[in-house]
């Protein structure tokens, strides 16, 4: 996709780009912003747009020209006065932001402004985040800090309160579906994918080598077994799901799929049948049947079980254990019929 970054920012977040333009025109850019939005919502694109816009030598109509030396260097990641940090592992530790802090104390290398972009701001350790507080509170003139996060509530409140929080607007479901359709991703997968992410790029990655199709099928089959209280589902964990769970990201996607399919089941049981609200439309019949088979309390319990497991990967629990245990607990829940 050879789309220019500023066009992408504009397309993904037209209202926010327009708003930033207005703020820039009024010279009221605040010193620290927190951009909040899911993957694919365009946080980084907007941040990059703002960087280009701030440094561009010849902006036209409020847009960077992308051809001047400044723009070129920003695009190639070589601008000395734009300092970035992102999580390389699961965290951003104190050591990793030391260079950031050093940069805060020094003059810009070339002009009179400096821009800091901290991606995954929620992944800063408490120590790392705390050690930035002083700099974020009162940076010198011409210093701007953009922090990006998918999860605002995981950002230290003391950091949050020093920033202006900008929530990315959710992408329109129809737009997303159109884009995925343009990439020739089959409809069934499209519908499921948009329940997991707003990032077209991410979906593309998942779809490579047909992985996503297999994942959707695998989870659907598992769902059909487990929702019948059938312990075959337990076997399917190893025969189907574990094979698909080749890395940590894919494991998380599988867990998210599991959550999503049960969420659909719960919604169907509550009388939501509009296919626009559901993701696993192929299983709708089965879900309808479940609604007659189990009590709402049971379905609710199962949905909650699927929510509880989602963060277990982060605690280094083995994927197979997570799903096997979940399977057993779901079957227990569904089999435990009023036996008093």
């Amino acid at each position, binding site marked *: 996709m050879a789309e220019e970054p500023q066009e992408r920012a504009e397309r993904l977040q037209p209202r926010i780009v327009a708003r930033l333009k207005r703020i820039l025109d009024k010279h009221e850019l605040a010193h620290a912003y927190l951009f909040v939005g899911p993957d694919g919502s365009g946080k980084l694109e907007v941040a990059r747009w703002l960087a280009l816009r701030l440094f561009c030598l010849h902006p036209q109509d409020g847009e960077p020209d992308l051809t001047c*030396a400044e723009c*070129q*260097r920003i695009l*190639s*990641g*070589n*601008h*000395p006065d734009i*300092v*970035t940090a992102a999580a390389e592992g699961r965290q951003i530790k104190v050591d990793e932001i030391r*260079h950031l*802090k*050093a940069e*805060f*104390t*020094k*003059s*810009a*290398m*070339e*002009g*009179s402004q400096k821009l800091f972009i901290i991606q995954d701001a929620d992944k800063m350790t408490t120590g790392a985040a705390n050690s930035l507080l002083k700099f974020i509170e009162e940076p*010198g003139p011409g210093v701007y800090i953009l922090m990006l996060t998918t999860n605002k509530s995981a950002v230290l409140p003391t950091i949050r309160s020093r920033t202006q929080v900008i929530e990315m607007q959710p992408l329109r479901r129809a737009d997303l579906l159109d884009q995925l359709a343009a990439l020739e991703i089959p409809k069934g997968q499209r519908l499921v994918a948009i329940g997991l992410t707003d990032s077209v790029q991410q979906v593309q990655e998942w779809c490579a080598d047909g992985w996503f199709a297999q994942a959707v099928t695998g989870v659907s089959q598992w769902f059909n077994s487990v929702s019948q209280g059938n312990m075959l589902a337990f076997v399917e964990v190893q025969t189907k799901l574990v094979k698909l769970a080749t890395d940590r990201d894919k494991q998380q996607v599988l867990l998210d799929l599991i959550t999503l399919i049960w969420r659909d089941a719960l919604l169907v049981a509550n009388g939501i049948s509009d296919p626009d609200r559901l993701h696993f439309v192929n299983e709708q019949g089965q879900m309808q049947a479940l609604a007659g088979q189990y009590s709402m309390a049971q379905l609710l319990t199962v949905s909650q079980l699927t929510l509880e497991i989602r963060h277990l990967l982060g605690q280094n629990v083995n994927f197979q254990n997570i799903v096997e245990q979940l399977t057993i607990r779901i079957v227990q829940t569904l089999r435990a019929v009023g036996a008093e």
Partner: protein
Amino acid sequence: MKFTINRPAFISQLNNVLRAISSKTTIPILTGLKMVVDKEGIILTGSNSDITIESVIEASDTDYDLTVEDPGAIVLPARFFSEIVKKLPDKQVTIEVTSGFQADITSGTAKFQINGQDAENFPHLPEVETNKTITLPNDVLKEVIRQTVIAVSKQESRPILAGIHITLHDGLLTAVATDSHRLAQRKVTLNDVDNGIDFDVIIPGKSMNELSGMISDVDEDVQVQVTENQILFIFGNTHFYSRLLEGNYPETSQLIPDTADTTVELDAGTFLASIERASLLSHESRNDVVKLTLNPDENLVRISSDSPDIGTVEEEVATTSLDGNDLEISFNPNYMKDALRSFGQTTVKIAFTSALRPFTLVPTEDGENFVHLITPVRTF
């Protein structure tokens, strides 16, 4: 771009520039070395973003045996490039950028081809404006750095104190450093300075140390120019840029007391030796302080220290002059040692106000231009 140059001479300039290049950098292009070639000569640039060093090789300088065929510019990976050039077989080396950003390096029968980057992507340096420079004698600048850099703070908690505060006002250059427990201030009056040139900057102590090392190798005077965000020192064919620290430097002028209740004059070298002896014991105790007792009526100055585990020391100090009130004052001997060393072999005048107020050291001659201030330690 194409030029041929004497290899050993080129290597010495490469080494100069390599001092600024670090393999650990967050800006990818800074692992590279920039070469700009024109009919006038070659400019080599290396940077770690804190400091930037440029070496100018002039075509007219016969040592380099430089022939420029085509002007141009490129950034080459610094470490590889310098290793390659050092290991080449012939006395001459030819560097040619053929297509895009690929460079051919030929020497004798050896030929390397390495990938470079667009020189446009290298950080842009401030322009040299000769009419805005001041000139400092080489040894004066070295002395200014030596005398102030010792008081630079090594603490991370107040980053601004990691710099030397240098101001130029009405032809008077003032350099101050403090870690908030001691302070060193050096003034230099510059005679032939355009009064229009004033500046007020904070230069990282690290940069000044590096600069000090580099100007020791040459004996030319140093030209200094301050731009919006960098300071530039020019000596010989080298341009040395340093970034500046941002923030408010503490107001230090009020810290130096202008009156004194007790003053003593003594020989810096002798006093230093006494302090070193006393600190043999003080270092062993947790407090690490040396006590100075001044008794003008009896013309007595005594230093003493003790370590509860080891023992005590007392020594009378020879003075050339002693005036004012009786006083007992304690201080960290390391601060005193650093200060005395920065004076060299000379007589110093120490002026005290009270046991809890900072005291100053100045050379008895030329006392206006250099002052060192030390905060005492409370021992009661």
